[in-house]
């Protein structure tokens, strides 16, 4: 049985096919660019096909060599991966360092029944070992194995060997479902995700195309001619038609914006399920790329409950976990991206947190801070108003002056209703946000340092920012009266120094 342990294994042979298909994808754009550009004159289609063929052959060859040269060994104490076509790299990750194993299934891999296995060590980014791709069964076997190895060291040894010997390891029992999103919920969510980002992408593509294609996109004269043609045409059709055209354009924009939001949301969050299992929180989501992530409960450092100006009016909020593994944006730990507060509360309590209630002793920031912020918000507009009063026709300066009043009022409103903080025996709450409240909840125990920072103005006016050292995220409470900042720090430090927590 122990021979299983030391046998080097390869990833699934079909992953070469995925690599080859990837190179086809890479070959298409350059080939198209050559085909539609001036390179090579009349023979350019031949050149395009040759370039594409070469790219595909080289890509496939590299994929094959990469597959041949990558082996992994599931050892007694660690997982070792040797890889590299010319220069070889050997990396070993001890089981106790593996925080978790995540499985990702991009669309192509799903077609072939493969998964990419990532061993997360908490080091973040490229330091983690990824095996792309192994069969789905091998993926869940590895995950199961690593977990058993790590957690039940002595007992697990026998269990893991048994698991290795068994052809089909038993999956972990299904957990309790904490949160899931129905297609109706996804559609509502998608409508709130209205986005015109697609136009930015289109512009970028145009610029990209411009490098290859003969249209001089950035030549002003071309546009001038086009505009003059269009404007005479527009002028000819009369004002009524112009209004209709403008309305139609806005309508198209709105439709595209909603469609983008819906599409992005549905592809990302299709079949969103959050479960509480014995190993922690398990989240599965995705339409084309299905991801399956497990977050151990003790790794959750803080909660962030965010919302948008419009969705807040309908009570929709998003809950995400702050954890050490979430350093990079892609590994976002959104656990309830679109939920009502009643749905969020049980998830928070499953993670060992609780939401603020009536008993929470909210406190405001310092009054000096409020005044300074309001003046700061209005200052730029006041300067503009001054300049206009001197150099512009009468009355113009009233516009920026009004803007200054609005800015100052908004700033005061934010201080009055949104910017507040609270501390109780085990948690710290911090809220800010102008149009919608953004809330952070951290455990006093899981903080790593406390800093009181003051700029020149803050020193003069006697307030400070309290920076809390949070694993995997930032948390700061701004504009605290200095005495309050010191009081908070003393309280937090009392909790921290009472318990050792450096090993999380």
């Amino acid at each position, binding site marked *: 049985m122990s021979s299983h342990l030391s046998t080097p294994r390869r990833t699934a042979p079909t992953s070469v096919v995925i690599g080859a298909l990837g190179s086809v994808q890479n070959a298409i754009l350059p080939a198209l660019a050559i085909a539609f550009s001036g390179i090579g004159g009349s023979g350019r289609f031949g050149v395009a096909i040759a370039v594409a063929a070469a790219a595909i052959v080289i890509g496939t060859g590299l994929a094959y060599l990469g597959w041949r040269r990558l082996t992994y060994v599931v050892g007694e104490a660690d997982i070792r991966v040797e890889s590299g076509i010319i220069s070889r790299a050997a990396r070993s990750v001890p089981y106790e360092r593996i925080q978790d194993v995540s499985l990702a299934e991009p669309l192509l891999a799903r077609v072939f029944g493969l998964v990419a296995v990532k061993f997360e060590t908490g080091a973040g980014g490229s330091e983690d070992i990824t095996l792309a791709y192994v069969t789905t069964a091998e993926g869940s076997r590895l995950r199961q194995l690593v977990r058993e190895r790590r957690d039940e060291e002595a007992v697990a040894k026998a269990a893991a060997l048994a698991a290795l010997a068994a052809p089909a390891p038993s999956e972990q029992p299904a957990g309790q479902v904490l949160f899931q999103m129905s297609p109706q919920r996804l559609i509502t969510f998608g409508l709130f995700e209205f986005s015109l980002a697609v136009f930015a992408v289109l512009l970028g593509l145009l610029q990209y195309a411009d490098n290859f294609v003969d249209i001089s996109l950035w030549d002003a004269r071309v546009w001038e001619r086009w505009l003059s043609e269009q404007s005479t045409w527009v002028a000819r059709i009369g004002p009524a038609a112009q209004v209709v055209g403008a309305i139609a354009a806005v309508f198209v924009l709105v439709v595209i914006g909603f469609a983008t939001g819906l599409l992005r949301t549905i592809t990302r969050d299709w079949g969103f399920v959050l479960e509480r299992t014995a190993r922690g929180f398990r989240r599965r989501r995705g339409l084309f790329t299905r991801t399956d992530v497990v977050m151990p409960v003790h790794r959750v450092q803080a909660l962030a409950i965010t919302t948008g100006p419009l969705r807040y009016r309908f009570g929709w909020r998003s809950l995400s976990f702050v954890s050490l593994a979430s350093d990079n944006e892609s590994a976002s730990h959104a656990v309830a991206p679109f939920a009502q507060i009643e749905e969020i509360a049980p998830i928070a309590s499953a993670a060992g947190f609780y939401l603020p209630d009536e008993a929470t002793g909210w406190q405001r920031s310092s009054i000096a801070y409020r005044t300074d912020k309001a003046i700061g918000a209005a200052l730029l507009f006041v300067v503009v108003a001054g300049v206009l009063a001197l150099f512009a026709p009468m009355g113009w300066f009233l516009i920026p002056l009004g803007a200054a009043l609005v800015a100052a009022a908004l700033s005061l409103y934010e201080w009055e209703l949104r910017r507040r903080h609270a501390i109780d025996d085990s948690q710290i709450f911090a809220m800010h946000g102008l149009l919608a409240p953004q809330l952070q909840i951290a455990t006093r125990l899981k903080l790593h*340092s406390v800093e009181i920072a003051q700029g020149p103005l803050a020193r003069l006016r006697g307030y400070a920012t309290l920076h809390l050292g949070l694993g995997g995220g930032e948390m700061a409470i701004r504009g605290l009266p200095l005495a309050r900042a*010191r009081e908070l720090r003393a309280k937090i430090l009392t909790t921290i120094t009472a318990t050792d927590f*450096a*090993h999380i």
Partner: protein
Amino acid sequence: MDNALAPHATLLDDEGALTRLHPNYTWALRVGMLLRLVPLVIAALVVEVVLAEAAQSDPDLAALALVPQGGLSGAVMLAVLLLLIFVPQRRYNARGYQMSADRLRVVRGVLWHSDTVVPLSRVQHIDVHQGPVERFFGIATLTLHTAGTHNASVHLPGLGADLARAMREDIRAHIKRESL
């Protein structure tokens, strides 16, 4: 470390008097600052030479010749000298630390003031670093690494080299004891 301190540790007050850094730290700061200001002095000299030549060749710019020779570079050098005398001294005065049984407090900043406390039980690992200038002055920088994103590494420069190593050993002993 004195174990008798430990039970009272949480009662220690974090606004207490700070321990000053090694006096040589001011000089290390001056050398570092000088190295950064040298390009400015050179630039002043170059500008002066160029202007003097322009004043000779072009009658329109003859007025420039009224500035006494070395006036510009002299003024720049005087400013640099004043900066070198006063800024490091102020910076030194603004800095300090407070080491207690279970935490290290680091204070710094003349204009942007910051006052950080790192509980020793949250220290992931410790570095003692000496650059060439620091080595010449016999001082070192102690760096505490924590798992937090903010203040992932807290630097305490300007400690005597021996003291820095002794503090590292103290903190290490603390970590070992706590994790047992």
